[in-house]
């Protein structure tokens, strides 16, 4: 059993399991699934921010912070006990693209050549993590949701605003992955 769990999970197992987040949270807590609002609650909880956006009782949303704390623990567990850090079996087309990008090996969750702590001070890495992270925080709050809240929860509700958001997520991602990442990796 444990060996089975340690191996790569096929999409038709992991996809439906991700979808189960929707009924799990609705039934147990009457909460709609979403992750990015936790970033706002963290800001409100730890910084003395004067803007109206941060004037609310963050403790009312403690459940969201507990959920993401659990996510950290679960990920740790998956890496330590379920071989979660193994390389994904990406397609041949993707492999040759990564080779073209100058990445020597496809191993782990993130390419060590870019994201290892030793390489943190290189320009591409700082741009990818610093600017990318900023876009994630700013964009998910401006767009009022992320892949969890809009793509999984919002589309499950057949919510038109969520569909618009998801189309935009992919438009933005396709542009950057095709035109910006290859340039950054050449820096």
């Amino acid at each position, binding site marked *: 059993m444990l060996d089975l769990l340690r191996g790569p999970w096929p999409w038709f197992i992991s996809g439906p399991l991700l979808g189960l987040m929707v009924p799990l949270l*609705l039934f147990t807590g009457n909460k709609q699934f979403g992750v990015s609002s936790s970033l706002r609650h963290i800001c409100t909880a730890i910084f003395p921010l004067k803007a109206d956006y941060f004037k609310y009782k963050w403790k009312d949303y403690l459940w969201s912070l507990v959920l993401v704390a659990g996510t950290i623990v679960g990920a740790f567990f998956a890496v330590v006990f379920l071989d979660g850090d193994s390389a994904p079996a990406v397609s041949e087309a993707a492999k040759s693209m990564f080779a073209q990008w100058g990445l020597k090996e496809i191993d782990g969750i993130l390419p060590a050549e870019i994201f290892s702590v030793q390489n943190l001070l290189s320009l591409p890495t700082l741009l990818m993590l610093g600017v990318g992270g900023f876009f994630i925080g700013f964009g998910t709050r401006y767009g009022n949701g992320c892949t969890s809240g809009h793509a999984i929860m*919002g589309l*499950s509700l057949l919510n038109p605003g969520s569909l618009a958001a998801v189309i935009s997520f992919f438009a933005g991602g396709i542009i950057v992955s095709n035109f910006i990442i290859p340039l950054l990796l050449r820096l």
Partner: protein
Amino acid sequence: MLKHLKFLIIGIFFGIVLIKSEVISWFRIQEMFHFQSYFMYAIIGSAVVVGAISVQIIKRSNLKSFSGEEINLTGKPFNKVGNTLGGLIFGFGWALTGACPGPLYALLGAGYWAILIAIISALLGVIVYGYLRPKLPH
């Protein structure tokens, strides 16, 4: 505290699935944005199918939450500019880091310390948004 224990357990489940589904993989994300595999689309698609079926069952059978409450199935408001422009900006960040908010936490748990830079920058992005919000079109 006990009230929140269920969310901790659901969060742990979420973290395990995020890692084992490979949706947190930088390689998988770039492959997806280049349409080099159906893998990620099949995961997101089947997740939505399960979510949507759950929502329909709840609606049609008028199911209540375990504590007996009416389940809230109101979608988020459609902010035409906010959803599209904000979504686009988030998409840029998704491709740059290879992570969305759930995976930011999962990568931290997985021991990828570099992701702390992305998390701190994301918090900064939220703060900047909070202050600019009154001036932005939504």
